């Protein structure tokens, strides 16, 4: 087996600034107030992921899941420790893909695909497939700034799943999609998993994680609180009592 992702004591520190201008800062300093504070959004997290594993990343809001995925994808750099990955990475981090609001869906599609490492030929070849998956129709030639958050996520997800990646990151990607789209995405992700790619899936829905993942990692205030089996992880979070909701949404698993 090949190792896909290695994290060694990865830490990300954010500085919270309470004041923006020189006037505000100097007033606060004169009054003896604090002008900034630091906190660790991700705190000495270490783990190793083998190629082909499907990880459910769970934790409360603000526990550092998106920050962790940003460091794995290379958007952010850890302040301490190191992240190592093998192969191409694609995915959707935090809701909404990195689209330029002033460009049309089509232009954004090409740009986004190029950033994720697709060549022009590859994009041209997959273009129809991506557009069909996103199901945006004539909206494709209007500004992305005017898309609803659901449409934005649809296009972002459609591009990300069509990249030939070795690691796929999905961060609450399906939170804003409608039910038919969610179903389509989950099917696609299962296909990705079966193809032997590594998956990182952030979800608050125990049902989805059960169906999709074979390992759960739980973050708590930026620290690794749990790393192990799916059932134990869900139990650890006390999410296993939510069965009533899940019965209501058997197919897609309830999200958010």
């Amino acid at each position: 087996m090949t190792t896909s992702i290695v994290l060694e004591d990865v830490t990300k520190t954010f500085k919270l600034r309470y004041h923006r201008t020189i006037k505000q800062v100097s007033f606060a300093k004169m009054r003896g107030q604090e002008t900034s504070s630091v906190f660790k959004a991700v705190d000495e997290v270490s783990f190793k992921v083998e190629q082909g594993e499907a990880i459910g990343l769970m934790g409360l809001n603000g526990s550092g899941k998106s920050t962790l995925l940003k460091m794995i994808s290379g958007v952010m750099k850890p302040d301490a420790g190191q992240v190592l990955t093998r192969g191409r990475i694609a995915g959707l981090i935090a809701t909404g893909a990195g689209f330029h609001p002033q460009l049309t869906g089509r232009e954004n599609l090409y740009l986004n695909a190029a950033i994720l490492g697709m060549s022009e030929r590859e994009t041209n070849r997959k273009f129809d497939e991506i557009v069909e998956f996103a199901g945006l129709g004539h909206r494709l030639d209007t500004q992305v700034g005017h898309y609803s958050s659901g449409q934005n996520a649809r296009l972002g997800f459609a591009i990300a799943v069509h990249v030939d990646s070795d690691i796929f990151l999905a961060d609450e990607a399906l939170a804003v999609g409608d039910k038919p789209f969610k179903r389509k995405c989950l099917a696609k992700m299962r296909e990705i998993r079966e193809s032997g790619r590594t998956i990182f899936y952030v979800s608050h829905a125990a049902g989805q994680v059960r169906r999709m993942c074979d390992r759960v990692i739980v973050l708590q205030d930026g620290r690794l609180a749990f790393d192990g089996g799916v059932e134990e992880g869900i139990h650890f979070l006390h999410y296993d009592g939510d069965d009533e909701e899940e019965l209501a949404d058997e197919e897609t698993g309830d999200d958010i």
Partner: protein
Amino acid sequence: MERPAVAAEPVAVAAHRDLSGVPLTPPTAGNGLHAVFKKRYLLKLLVKRELSARYQGSFLGLLWSYIGPLCQFFVYWFVIGTILGLHDNVPNFGVHIFCGLVVVHFFTETFGAGTRSIVRNKSIVVKLPMPREMFPVASMLVSLFHVFPQLVILTIACLAYGWTPDFVGMVALLLGLLIAMLLGTAGALLFSAANVFFRDFSSLVSIIQMFIRFSVPMIYPFSFVDDRFGAAASYYLFNPLADCVLLVQRAFWVGSTPHPDEVAKTDLPPDLLIWGLAMTGAGLVLLAIGQLVFSRLEAKIPERL
């Protein structure tokens, strides 16, 4: 990092490829200026995007890239040339101004648009991994794109004055543009990153641009500097943009005047090409510094946007 090229992409993702030959690397490895030129297709898309977005929502669009320098040209031509009377002192003063304007406008546009480039592409920078140097470099290439029509106009005007292109002149032109390119990219790199932390930098840029317009022999000839400063005039040449302007004037303006040899003696410094080469070296050093500072700041860019 070298992402492996996929030989034959499977239509439906079949059995996954063997990755054991691919090294484990940090996902941010291999960012930097050299990566920018490896990802030429992405760079091309960004340049295209920037071309369409720089004046988005404006009726005249791309024309603004030419209206700006054109208006500056006529203001200088009239105020400095006619009112202050430099038409009498400097032969072909219009060409003299225009040579300076081509370089100065190229540099200031690169510097200005480059400085704003990362903040303007915020939505992409905070979500997607890529060498962020791409944005300032794309700004530089867009500005370079606008240089060529201006050079065509300049060529036509000079030909009308009986100018013939010469080899040394063309070398001077290339050197001048190269220095402006290096400096513009270095400045754009430094300021685009700094602008993320304090937007004050984009305001600072317009002040610097104003100084630049007056610190080069564009609206006055180099002979004035020589007259007023005497031996100190050589310090003036430590301003790399002054050398750029002089190099372009060597390429076009000198040859368009009635007595090129005399003009070259009074209005160009001796050893201009040596200065040009030295400033190219200085430009490379500045670019390296710019890249170094950029990489340092880059680690904090996505979280501060």
